[in-house]
């Protein structure tokens, strides 16, 4: 235990983990959508810092750029543009909170427990050299070529879905006009 405290990296980890846990709980318990989205910023930014601790620099910055930078801003825009309730709201919760909490705790217990049993006394000895963006690019276009391509299908399907669902149907009259034009 003394070893554990003497290493500064463990302190950093502890702080990050506490922030993630606290902000994570805030995301689901907050009664204000904006606050929930902002708490998610805390979760994702701290997760990015965790990746930095593991010297996965590129992944950390991708997390910041894509999730904190783009996805969350999109969330906030979405909340503001649609007529979602923005002030203090009570209707976000329902009476199944208890069940949800039990499920979440059970999942946590399972994952934490199995990891603890498996790796509880294993010491992480250094995390190796930082992986450069070049290495990542090599493996993306080499070994992971097919998954890399398939990810674009996931995006395509989601994109089609987003557009098709959000688009307003033209009325038959407008449709006829379009065909004549």
């Amino acid at each position, binding site marked *: 235990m003394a070893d554990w405290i003497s290493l500064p990296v463990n302190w950093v980890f502890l702080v990050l983990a506490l922030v993630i846990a606290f902000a994570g709980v805030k995301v689901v318990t907050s009664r204000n959508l904006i606050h929930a989205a902002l708490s998610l910023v805390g979760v994702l930014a701290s997760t990015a810092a965790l990746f930095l601790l593991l010297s996965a620099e590129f992944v950390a910055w991708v997390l910041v750029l894509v999730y904190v930078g783009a996805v969350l801003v999109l969330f906030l825009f979405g909340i503001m543009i649609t007529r979602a309730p923005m002030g203090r709201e009570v209707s976000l919760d329902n009476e199944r909170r208890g069940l949800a909490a039990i499920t979440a705790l059970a999942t946590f217990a*399972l*994952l934490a*427990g*199995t*990891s603890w*049993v*498996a*790796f509880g006394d294993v010491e992480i000895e250094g995390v190796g050299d930082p992986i450069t963006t070049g290495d990542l690019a*090599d493996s993306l*276009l*080499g*070994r*992971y*070529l*097919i*998954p890399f391509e*398939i*990810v674009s*299908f*996931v995006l*395509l*399907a*989601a994109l*089609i*879905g987003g*557009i*098709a*669902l959000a*688009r307003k*149907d*033209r009325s038959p009259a407008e*449709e006829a006009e*379009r*065909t004549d034009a």
Partner: protein
Amino acid sequence: MVETPEISLVAILPELALTVGAVVVLMVAVSSRRAATYLPWIAGLTVAATGAGLIAQYNDVAANGFSVSYAGMIVLDNQGIVIRTVMLAAIAVALLVGWRYVTGLGTRGGEALSLVFLSAVGFMLMASSIHFMLLFLGLEVGSISLYVLAALGQRAKRADEAAMKYFLLGSVASAIFLYGVALLYAGTGSLTYLGVFEFFSGDTLVFSDGLLSAGVALLFVGLLFKIAAAPFHSWAPDVYQGAPAGIVGYMGAAAKIGAIAALLRFVQVPFQSVIESIQVPLAAVAAFSVVLGTLYAIVQQDLRRVLAYSGVSHAGFLLMGIATGGVAEVQVLFYLATYVLVLVGAFGIVSLLEGSGSAGSPIENWKGLGRRSPFLAWSLTVFMLGMAGMPATAGFIGKFGIFTRAWSGDLEWLVIVGLLASVAAFFFYLRVVVAMFFEDGDGKTPKLGWPAGIGIGLTLVITVGLGLYPTPLLDVLTAALG
């Protein structure tokens, strides 16, 4: 220096054809004013090109044997080809019987068509993947496309509820699956099927037992959810009832094909040497699905919910074959092929009666259909008997094959459970038949167009044909897989 993986176009030919088809459909739908007239041709061409790709693959395997490409990600073997052929057949029949759904969507028809193709790409990749990451991506491509398809129909409360339920629960299942992959990777240090197989069959002391058990369990739960096996079936009845009738048959079929393909490979390669520890839970899920699906189907008042719960029990029968540990692949694939076609056909008839975008189909609506539309009533009767496993239909041969394999695989108790459930199942399958022929009612009279007629006719021929004379197909399957 980049190591280029061995690229083999022939290994992904069917997926390529479908991708091109999906993109062309999208492009035509946005750019052409007369898109509606082109869509049937593009769809037909895409299906034909995919079929040609499968033939090329078959010839390649016949000449060179099975091959692995893309740095150990994709395998080209006969099992994958058979599953993809089943998938293609499901698409072809689903598009024929559900074409009204595509046209009924108006300007969204192109999107629906391209999503059907994209989902097929995802599930086909699941059949040929031998890498957990690629498997997950295939699952996601397929599932996301299906979520959108479920939501594309009319803006009705029940349809929206079904789509939302499918999306939320499906996403949770994908997350569970991904947790499983992560734990498995933490435990074995490998993401390839072969690597996991070598880890388990090596004599190294497994030091992280709990971690691996949890990982494997989560992995299976994620897939069992997708095939709607009990107790992970709660989404199925609502989705089958609420999603647009014209596409829900394909949705159920495609997800089952992809997940069963993956489960089959699981017991053949990565978890082959630990099959004893997997067999009991799998058999338990199979028994539970068969019993629960049958009992719940009996009390349903809506044909679509009946079909959903019967899907739960069919998932149980398929798992029965998988629990034998990969020796029953011929039987499982035969069962899968005949079941999904009958499912698509039956939902085709539902959509003809109720309208392609409809939700729900109370048994009440089917009363007297035997007089109003004898062809559809008789077709549905044959499909129902096929699902029940009546002799002289393909369903009987499928069930018989699975039972024989399970019996010789020391799962006698499971076979007895399955037999009892099969007998009880006749009750709910025949209830709609009784309603159609022996009860009076003045519901809608469906209009049968030629594409739907061809689709239903084809399914009829296959169901009865394979029931009376299954030997050629079984011989081909045995020769290809044995």
